[in-house]
């Protein structure tokens, strides 16, 4: 009982802290960490061999920042993205999202948090091909239990925002790469997440279309979203305010 009450107070304090945070001005916001990766190790088991992918990584990303994570293949870049994106939990160390430790959470709780707080944009777009653009945008909201009417309204607004207002009923297979990636951007925004995580967002696009998508992501940043972009392209990474470089599982 006592334990439970203590827990409740902790939650209360925690919430009030958040409340204060959201009232602080833009300048202050930059210093508030959204994601903290603290001394994280991640070891994959390949049969009997243990392969360390991350070896004591510390990354802090503040609210409203535009950060690029760079590194050659095998640098632990993808693993770092998985940690930051709550797709995976560390073998050692802690990951905080909005001050909550998520490194001990179960898969379903992680999924809920991802759905609410993080929007993903992938290199290969990762849309579901059997359903229309608008249904793809609706999907994250379905998992959050948003009503049909509200979903439709938000999805329409978002698709118009990415200039696809006239292609809502098209299936991904009927769209160009750039259009698909714009649907993916709209989908990433569906639950109004704090963080947009883009994994090589221009990797499968020609340079002109790539620029368009980067422009769109830049616009989201200006509107206050925290952007984390994983890339190996220096030109693309230049758009970020800060670049975190990884090598051999460590930040350099």
């Amino acid at each position, binding site marked *: 009982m006592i334990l439970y009450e203590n827990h409740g107070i902790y939650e209360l304090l925690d919430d009030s802290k958040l409340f204060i945070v959201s009232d602080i001005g833009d300048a202050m916001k930059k210093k508030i960490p959204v994601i903290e990766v603290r001394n994280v190790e991640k070891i994959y088991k390949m049969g009997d061999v243990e392969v360390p992918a991350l070896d004591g990584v510390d990354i802090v990303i503040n609210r409203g920042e535009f950060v690029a994570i760079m590194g050659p293949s095998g640098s632990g870049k993808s693993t770092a993205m*998985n940690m930051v*994106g709550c*797709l*995976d939990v560390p073998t050692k160390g802690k990951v905080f999202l909005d001050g909550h430790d998520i490194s001990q959470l179960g*898969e*379903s709780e992680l*999924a*809920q948090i*991802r*759905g*609410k707080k993080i929007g*993903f944009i*992938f290199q290969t777009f*990762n*849309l*579901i*091909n*059997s*359903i229309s653009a608008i*249904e793809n945008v609706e*999907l*994250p909201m*379905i*998992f*959050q*239990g948003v009503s*049909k009417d509200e979903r439709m309204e938000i999805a329409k607004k978002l698709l118009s925002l990415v200039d696809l207002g006239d292609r809502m009923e098209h299936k991904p297979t009927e769209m160009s790469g750039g259009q698909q990636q714009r649907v993916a951007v709209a*989908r990433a925004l*569906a*639950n109004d997440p704090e963080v947009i995580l883009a994994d090589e967002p221009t990797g499968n696009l020609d340079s002109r279309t790539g620029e368009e998508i980067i422009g769109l992501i830049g616009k989201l940043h200006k509107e206050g979203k925290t952007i984390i972009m994983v890339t190996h392209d220096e030109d693309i990474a230049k758009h970020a305010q800060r670049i975190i470089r990884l090598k051999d599982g460590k930040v350099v």
Partner: protein
Amino acid sequence: MILDYFRFSISTFGGRKLRTALTILGIFIGIAAVVSLISLGQGMQNAVDEQFEMLGSNRITVTPGGGDMSSPMTTGLVAAKLSDHDVEVIRKVKGVDHAIGVLVRTAKIEYRGKSRYTMLFASSTDSKSIKFIENIDYFMLEEGRYPKESEKYKASVAIDTGNSLFDREIKRGEKITVNDRNLEVIAITKKTGNPVHDTKVTVPLDTARDLFGIEDEELSLIFVETSAGFMPADVAENIEDALRKDHRVKIGEEDFTVATAEQLIASFKGMLGMVQVFLVGIAFISLLVGGVGIMNTMYTSVLERTREIGIMKSIGARNIDVMAIFVIESGLLGLVGGVVGVVMGYAIGKAAEMIAVASGVTILKVFYSAELIIGALLFSFVIGSLSGMFPAIEASRKNPVDSLRYRR
């Protein structure tokens, strides 16, 4: 949310039309079999009820042979015999209004140069017996009258006897030849819906014994009508007692069977029921096979859509959401199979009914109950969902990172 998953599942079928169709086929065969067999069986049960209603609820049938061996179907196959003497014994039993002996044989009938085989019924021609028989639905007359005792070589035919055996209606006054003896047709019996009775020939008992060279007083069965105010079951017991005494047999060793109309219905339905349980059992096995087909398809689908599962998980789908999507999808496969199966089952039942009507059995009406149809649909959905359960659990347990990286 569940409703959204339904819509989502339906949209994914489009991409795999052939496989979806084949999977559905597995279920629909089973459901079609179950629906057609049960509705036909129900129709048969109803037909049996109707037939025995025609026999009359205050009537009792005595057939040769005892115990379980005997039923209306085995008449003529047993060695034990009934005789005119038994009729005399029964007529004296308390509560019996009247009893008549009936002889049933297959006979060769010739008419206008063609010869055909059909059932021949024979019974006594005293006036009380004629009155009795005219009141049994199977023997009611459309026109004419039954031959009297003095009219040995006269016969009656059923309304369809001519048309269905000789492609030509037999009219009163015409001659037919039974076992090389000419008989004049003087009466036509009414339509009953039962092809045996609608193509029969009826002759006086003595005539039949002559035609077939039967020297003893053999009878195929005895019809008994109870007097008003007596319970058929009580009278049946009295008849049993009297016959046992007369045949000098103990309880359990009877060489005859006495059954009220109700008992006949029960034994008939019992047999029908057993056949039905057997057939429906086979149909259920085919449903099970259909379920395994769904499971197979779903495992393939889970593997193929590993990446899709990764996407869904990355955008916030919990394990239970992924599981629900796959279970609903397989449930829908089952349900669609069920819908097609119910329609097919309905068609098969109707076709069977039409074939029955074409061959003269107009009493068989296929009976579709709402419970059967709703039950079949529900069952097909449940079988689909259950078959999809294991693949769905596998899908839900997939790790999002590996799933996203999965390449076909």
